[in-house]
């Protein structure tokens, strides 16, 4: 069906903030952005799905908890089970964790402060739909803006996550060195993003969709969206 231009769906939940930027990032990088609605049981035949940042349903209870039961999540789950590429950004990452599609959970930043600034990420895995254009050890710069981005898991879960290589991004300094000083929110093992075991579902707290336009800041999000479009296209042709 798709010829040449991958179609990437971006789900809008009540309280989503970054759906517009995510659609724009898809278009800037050469894809077709498709707006999806939380209450629909329909992914409109897209080749990849993005769950954007924001405060879905006000983030009452826990971040992403209510959205994790939204009608469209049934469709996202089925799409993910078929191997379709799924990217959760910030609140989208929290939603995927709450929905059980990604391991771990996000709690309030260790500092208890909302943090909004550019950070450096060290790429840990190229085996995902968003890191195919990057190599492990590479450093990218993109912004974070969250109050509840501290990645946690029980010690058994964390061991499994590390042993199976499910960490995709870690907070680091500009040289790729991971340490206390470059970990903005107290995340365990400085984890900024993880993937599922199959590798097709990825979530991260930082915002690649805010880092694709050189006029407004760093462009570390470009390779992530380029890779997402490539894997969407590969899936559409398969």
């Amino acid at each position, binding site marked *: 069906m798709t010829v040449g231009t991958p179609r990437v769906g971006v789900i809008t939940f009540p309280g989503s903030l970054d759906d517009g930027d995510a659609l724009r990032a898809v278009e800037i990088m050469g894809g077709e952005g498709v707006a999806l609605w939380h209450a629909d049981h329909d992914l409109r035949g897209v080749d990849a799905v993005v769950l954007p940042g924001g405060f879905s349903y006000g983030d009452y209870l826990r971040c992403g908890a209510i959205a994790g039961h939204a009608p469209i999540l049934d469709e996202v789950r089925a799409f993910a089970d078929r191997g379709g590429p799924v990217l959760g950004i910030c609140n989208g990452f929290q939603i995927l964790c709450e929905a059980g599609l990604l*391991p771990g959970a996000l*709690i309030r*930043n260790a500092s*208890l402060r909302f943090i909004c600034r550019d950070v450096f990420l060290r790429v840990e895995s190229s085996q995902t739909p968003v890191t195919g254009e990057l190599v492990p050890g590479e450093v990218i710069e993109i912004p974070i803006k969250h109050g509840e981005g*501290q990645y946690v898991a029980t010690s058994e879960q964390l061991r499994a996550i590390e042993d199976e290589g499910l960490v995709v991004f870690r907070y680091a300094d500009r040289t790729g060195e991971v340490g206390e000083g470059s970990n903005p929110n107290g995340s365990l093992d400085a984890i900024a993003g993880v993937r599922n075991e199959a590798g097709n579902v990825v979530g991260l707290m930082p915002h690649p969709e805010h880092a694709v336009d050189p006029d407004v800041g760093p462009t570390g999000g470009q390779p992530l969206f380029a890779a997402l479009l490539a894997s969407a296209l590969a899936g559409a042709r398969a």
Partner: protein
Amino acid sequence: MRFTFELLVTLKPGLADPQGKAVEASLPALGFSDVSDVHVGRHVRLDVEAPSEPEARVQVEDIARRLLSNPVIEDFRVLEPSGSEGGASAG
């Protein structure tokens, strides 16, 4: 019948509890210098319409597992109402 339940949702032991830490850190300024191990959780109260208390409780535990708590990081406990014999209070 209507049954009233109360639940406590708490972070699993060993996980970081930034809210508890913040409360603990603010206590010395109020003159409480001997307080430690502070943890903050969530209290939920709800009414359930059901034929019997055990049937209501099954629903409450399901709700707690699927929505009110995140099993990755939290435990929940259904409180026994004071003055009853192990059941929720009917009202």
